């Protein structure tokens, strides 16, 4: 059913996979995701739909290996099958003409802003993207982003390429330099989204982040993906994953993400050990 059509390693630990999934390819919209199980005894994990091709009936996923399931997925090769992929899930992002927009992607988040960039450009926005990585070798998709964006700003933590520092600092600098930005969309690790939100809150810029809590079913049934938005409990899988950054409680999101850290580490270590010993 869900056959891997292509697999490309973008950088160390980040892979792009093109997978056959006809009904998702047909109906997905930017901001939506799939829930995937690599095999029957696997975990269900959410991944953003980066692209879709109706003609080839495929979708593109870009993921970073952070634990057992992503490592297992990365170990699959072209021609192999994925057990279950369900989607597109979540509410599509609000794509409209905002004016000047800044898309911020930290790490693998650069992949998740790609569909946003394409769609926001199409409706006539001036699109700036700011992507960051630890060092130049870890940067991904800069060329692809350049093809859709009016400006691409690159940051590295070690200064090996572009601006030395975090994406939130780069954004802050642009604003202080006098850039008028009407809308910000940020995806990445929670601390990064939180930092971006802090910057834009100060400057009263409408900001949306893609919340990334742990998920299981992705259909609003289990409640594990609950986040607090403006003091209210919301389920990221059906009410989001996009939320107003200035209303989202990042601290609760971060502490809930750590619930399974011990188990995750064990599963990952066991898996890597098995891989090494054949």
């Amino acid at each position, binding site marked *: 059913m869900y056959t891997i059509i292509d697999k490309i390693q973008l950088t160390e630990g980040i892979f792009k996979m093109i997978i056959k999934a006809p009904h998702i390819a047909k109906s997905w919209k930017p901001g939506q995701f799939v829930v995937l199980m690599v095999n029957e*005894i696997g975990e269900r994990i959410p991944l953003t739909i980066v692209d879709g091709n109706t003609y080839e009936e495929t979708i593109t996923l870009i993921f970073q290996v952070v634990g057992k399931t992503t490592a297992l997925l990365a170990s699959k090769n072209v021609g192999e099958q994925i057990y*279950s992929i369900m989607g597109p899930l979540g509410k599509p992002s609000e794509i409209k003409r905002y004016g000047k927009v800044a898309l911020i992607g930290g790490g693998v988040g650069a992949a998740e802003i790609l569909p946003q960039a394409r769609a926001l450009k199409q409706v006539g926005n001036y699109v700036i993207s700011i992507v960051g990585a630890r060092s130049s070798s870890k940067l991904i998709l800069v060329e692809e982003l350049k093809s859709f964006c009016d400006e691409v700003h690159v940051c590295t933590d070690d200064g090996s390429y572009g601006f030395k520092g975090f994406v939130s600092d780069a954004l802050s600098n642009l604003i202080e330099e006098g850039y008028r930005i009407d809308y910000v969309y940020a995806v990445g690790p929670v601390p990064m989204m939180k930092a971006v939100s802090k910057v834009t809150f100060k400057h009263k810029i409408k900001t949306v982040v893609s919340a990334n809590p742990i998920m299981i079913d992705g259909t*609003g*049934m*289990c409640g*594990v993906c*609950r986040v607090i938005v403006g003091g209210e409990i919301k389920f990221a899988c059906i009410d989001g994953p996009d939320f107003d950054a200035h209303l989202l409680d990042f601290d609760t999101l971060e502490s809930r993400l750590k*619930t399974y850290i011990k188990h*995750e580490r064990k599963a990952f270590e066991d898996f890597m050990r098995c891989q090494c010993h054949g």
Partner: protein
Amino acid sequence: MGNEEKSLREMPQLLPIEERISTFKEVNLGFTEEQVKKEASRCLQCPKAYCMAGCPANVKIPKFINAIRQGNYKRAIEIICETNSLPAVTGRVCQVEMQCEKACILGRKGIPVSIGLLERFVADIALKRGWKRFACDAFNGKRVAVVGSGPAGLTVAGDLIKLGYEVTVFEALHKPGGVLVYGIPEFRLPKNVVEKEIKTLEDSGVKICTNFCVGKSITLKEIFEEGYDAVFLGIGAGAPVVLDVPGVNLGGIYTANEFLVRTVLMKAYLFPKYDTPIDFGKKVIVIGGGNTAVDSARVAVRMGVEEVKIAYRRSVEDMPARREEILRANEEGVKILQLVNPVRFIGDENNHVIKVELVKNQLTYIDETGRSVPVPIEGSNFYVEGDMVILAIGQKANRVFTQTVPQLKLDKEGYIIVDYEAKTSLERVWAGGDIIRGSATVIQAIGDGKRAAASINKTLMSNNI
């Protein structure tokens, strides 16, 4: 159950307690054939069968028991299947003490016939021997889409395939069965029983498309565009209610849905063989009093935690869970704190729950549901230690589908409004099960499915649409 009961009716074989608490094996092993004969002979064969009226699916109880008496199990299962498409399931999970067995005449003076266990016996034989329960008519040219593969959806699928319809079931999850596979645990309803029931349907020609979330993967409009003549919505209630008290988002606090999905569906108890983890504490507190609460408590017991407590706001007698399961839970060491409400969850420095503040309740006036209303007693607050809390305080309507069809009429709580034939406000769309009545029961979902299937058949055959 008391000794008096034992002397009056046959008692099922149970797995020894020591074995129960360390495995997920089925607890109630059912009747032997000899017991079945004895129990069936107790039935009075009342001409006016109150038991039937007590069954939401109107199973022809005296008639199937009579077939058992004659040793004709094949006939017995055929009679049951006229009105109940999942007898091996209902024979295990029906709330019999509230339904058929409550209405049984014998029960008025003494102990009712064990109708549920008789049903289970013949259903299990039928599954084991692979008896075909019905023949299918030739394809009648009509196609029906069923959304959701819980008991309501499966019933509609079974009834319509019989009548010659082409039936496709769309299920969002990777496994069909609804609550039967993601909620009710293995020790009460073995998953191979559910799988066999579903296999029977598939063998009759029902097509099941898993990983299809209707409204997302395919819209209602697209289903009709693909040429389906009618749609049945059996999407369940399936959204957890999250208690609105301080500390509810601390680590270690689960909704029962998450807890059961992790353990029952994703088999977290087999971690790390299965990949889905769950973080078990030492002291577990389950909030609630229904089947979901009791099931969660009994799953926790089997994970080897030190203690498991259920905290329920009314009295034990008012608990909506099946009587039998409350008894089994007690035997397995689950403690029940009655007449209490949680007020606050308290966490440690890592934001992980360590205790729960509860307040005592007193029962006051009787409300419209016939139960007394609990009211907190001021100043009666106390603390119970617990490093894992499971919230089993009810379900609400899941919006994943309904939010995509604004024209569909819902009540104020988000449940789909239907008429007496299970028709919704949309043309050629029917609905049944938990999504029309809130958390209810398997047999009610089956009853709804029966009603809807009959109405779909009537409509499609008469209008010739």
